[in-house]
């Protein structure tokens, strides 16, 4: 009788763990997104510009660089260096790499 209940609990636990594991394997960046249309509309080519067609100076202004960070300097120092080198008004990074 006792052994039976243990088996029962064990089987429930396994099912639960499988579900939890299944949830955890969906990484936030791997979520597939779908668009639905509310209304049909077109954009006027007179205004704005597709991101890939920006002029070099605008491209910099709205741009990002994926830097291969050298291990020595901190993320902050790397950003400060880029800012000075490219003569930018500001620059920022997405979170620090925790090594120090």
């Amino acid at each position, binding site marked *: 009788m006792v052994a039976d209940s243990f088996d029962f609990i064990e089987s429930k636990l396994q099912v639960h763990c499988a579900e939890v594991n299944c949830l955890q394997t969906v990484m936030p*960046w791997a979520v597939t997104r779908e668009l639905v249309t509310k209304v049909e509309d077109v954009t006027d080519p007179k205004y704005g510009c597709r991101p890939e067609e920006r002029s070099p100076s605008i491209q910099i202004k709205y741009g990002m660089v994926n830097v291969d960070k050298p291990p020595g300097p901190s993320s902050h120092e790397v950003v400060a260096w880029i800012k000075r080198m490219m003569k930018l008004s500001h620059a920022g990074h997405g979170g620090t790499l925790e090594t120090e």
Partner: protein
Amino acid sequence: MLPVALEEATKVVQGFLYSGKEYVCAMQVHADVPEETLRGVLGEFVGEIYQKPPLRASVKRETRKRSIYRLEVHEVDGRMVLFTCSCQAGTYIRKLCSDIGEVLGCGAHMRELRRTRAGPFTEENGLVTLHELSLAQSEFEAGNPEPLRAIIKPMEIALSSMPRIEVRDSAVDALCHGADLAIPGIVKLDSSIVKNSLVALFSLKGEGVALGRALMTTREILDQEKGVAAKTERVLMDRGRYPAMWKH
């Protein structure tokens, strides 16, 4: 790797700061542990964990919950363990290693760490060394923008893993002035928007216009004809690129 946002693009950082991270880590354990035990203990750290930020941390030292999506051991060589960790933003890997050491009973510490992903940015998509960047910059200053153009990615990439809403030309300038997004301005939207989630507002040309907080679900937006769908939190685009229809 370190994704660096230039000038106006610094505004998108908020959007991907909280997206997942992936690291390759070398950890040293402080005693000889059978590989099976080691793999078993690492397996226990997959899922939701409690973590107290380390002494030297940039956040308040308060135990908090963090998700570990995946821990994959690549190699065990004596007391050195090489593994990949996919985790929620704000997970301290140094702390993870010492906590693994605690569970093992013998202690462990992080020897080396390399980030391989920050949200949509990975090591595979065009990693640039500082040297390459400075060469491209001098070419740019000498009148050849091509090398720099090849290196710089549009800020919109940082928004690619967020739910998005595409708006009409006539709604863009109002958003640029900080107005909230009303339903009549919406053309297309993500199929699974939940209330209070951060959404990226795009023009029909695929330009990032603003970041907003959803006030309605996808269903509500599709079913209703008026009302505020998203509260504008951060404007990305300069004013005046699209006509100011809202002034009339």
